[in-house]
């Protein structure tokens, strides 16, 4: 019947097919250059994913309490808790918290919009992780600065296995 691994766990941007490669080869293009191009198309580096959400700014490290288990038995449901030490006043508050899982098929996982009404910058949620990877948190503050934290997670059962 079907493979237990879902096709959806492949990256949405697919590698060039064998036919495309052959066509490129016969057209005289440098085949050696293609694997590199294919790899960069299928896996965006974490630094670039972060730069996209911060609109190019480099976030400062620290200031974020990022609570996530280092060893995850079931990637289908991973508890995370994120806290930022912020007075949460009109002048100084956390605008949003963004979670990135670089090796998920869709690396942008979640965004939490907060406001001074939140009182405290502390949230928790349940994620899905496709594989062992680095998970990053980016927080945007009202003064325009960004903070980040990351953690290396080992996932023993991927969220890409059906039936979980």
């Amino acid at each position, binding site marked *: 019947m079907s493979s237990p691994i879902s096709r959806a766990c492949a990256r949405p941007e697919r590698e060039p097919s064998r036919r495309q490669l052959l066509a490129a080869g016969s057209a005289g293009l440098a085949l050696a250059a293609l694997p590199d191009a294919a790899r960069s198309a299928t896996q965006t580096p974490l630094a670039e994913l972060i730069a996209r959400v911060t609109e190019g700014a480099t976030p400062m490290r620290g200031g974020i309490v990022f609570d996530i288990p280092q060893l995850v038995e079931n990637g289908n449901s991973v508890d995370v808790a994120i806290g930022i030490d912020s007075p949460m006043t009109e002048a100084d508050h956390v605008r949003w918290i963004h979670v990135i899982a670089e090796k998920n098929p869709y690396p942008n996982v979640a965004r939490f919009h907060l406001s001074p009404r939140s009182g405290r910058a502390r949230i928790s949620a349940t994620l*899905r992780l496709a594989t062992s990877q680095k998970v990053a948190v980016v927080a945007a503050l009202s003064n325009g600065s960004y903070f980040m934290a990351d953690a290396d997670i080992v996932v023993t059962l991927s*969220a890409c296995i059906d039936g979980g």
Partner: protein
Amino acid sequence: MANFNARITMPAEAKAGEIVEIRVLVRHPMDRGGQVDAEGRIVPRKILNRLTVTYAGEPVFRFDMHTGISANPFVSFTTRAVETGDLVFEWREDGGAVFTRTARLVVT
């Protein structure tokens, strides 16, 4: 989904200025798309993509969800108790369906 099931856990009353924690658990498969069901068909993507919370008419929290959020998503957040009023939780599902739940916070 007629049987939309959400469990909202929060105090029924709070003192003015107090920070209350609100915990929300929803029953939803969060189909990320591409799984194969028992009949061998591909399941299309269907997730709750947004939860917005308003408190006495003012937005206080928004949670943008993508396929990387687990089935039966849980979220907790905080808000400052300012006045007696309704917290309205509104989920938006792929395809445009909207589900709403209300919880009342009495401020003493």
